[in-house]
């Protein structure tokens, strides 16, 4: 591997984004090349700083999932369950792409029976 080829790959190695065989070939070159060693040290430091800085960027607002869910799986707005082991009732209200859905089910001795779907 030449110094030019090594320097193309060094940032990806520092980013932990270089395929293993190429990483091994790169290190083989770097061990015998003082200039590329300096490049690698600099790239590793830079990589550490970049990862830390990107990780500090904010994430999406908490409500984003609800918007996505409403257009895909349906967002659960309310889920209520009452009852005991012998018998119980659950009621769920969900926002879906086409509006709202309300489902209810009755459980009796461990078996669940849908009783309501609007």
């Amino acid at each position, binding site marked *: 591997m030449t110094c030019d080829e090594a320097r193309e790959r060094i940032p990806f190695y520092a980013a932990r984004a270089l395929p293993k065989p190429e990483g091994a070939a790169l290190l083989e070159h770097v061990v015998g090349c003082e200039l590329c060693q300096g490049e690698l040290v600099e790239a590793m430091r830079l990589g550490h*700083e970049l990862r830390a800085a990107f990780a500090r960027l904010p994430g999406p*607002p908490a409500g984003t999932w609800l918007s996505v869910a409403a257009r895909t799986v349906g967002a659960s707005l309310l889920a209520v369950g009452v009852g005991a082991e012998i018998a119980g009732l659950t009621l769920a209200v969900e926002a879906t792409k086409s509006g709202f859905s309300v489902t209810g089910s009755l459980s009796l001795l461990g078996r669940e029976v849908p009783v309501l779907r609007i």
Partner: protein
Amino acid sequence: MADDRDLVGQVARGNGRAFRALYERYADRVFRYALTLLRNRHLAEEVVQETMVAVWNGADKFEGRSQVSTWIFGIARHHAYRIGRGEVKGERVPDEEGESPDPALMVEQEVRVQRAVAGLPPDQREVVFLAFYAGLPYEEIARVQGVPEGTVKSRMFHAKKRLAEELRP
């Protein structure tokens, strides 16, 4: 824990829990990617929404020829450019170039790094994000950007050189 491919397979079969898990795994990364491309939080949130809806609708078409992350970032890139051009809701992109995370929350060096990254040309900024934060190999970045691998290496070479100069202690 299910790997990304398993989750996409389950999403293709309509599994809502798998979709939620995939969302939890990617929402932050896609938002930060969109923020890196567009530098606007509202638009970045739109990108997350459109990307994840597209993932839900298109999971059954994912053939596994690339990494799941490459596929998702590719979708996100498409929507970021579409939304950035104002094709969604007929809006023009409000320019928030100066927007950055609350500096009070960031140590001085991280602010310097963010500013240095923000000063890179968009294509270089994107390569730096996809390699250093998303951990994509250069051949996957080439797929996301739709350019030859040599172009990705060149963009990274110039980005690294400029960042190293600007951030030299």
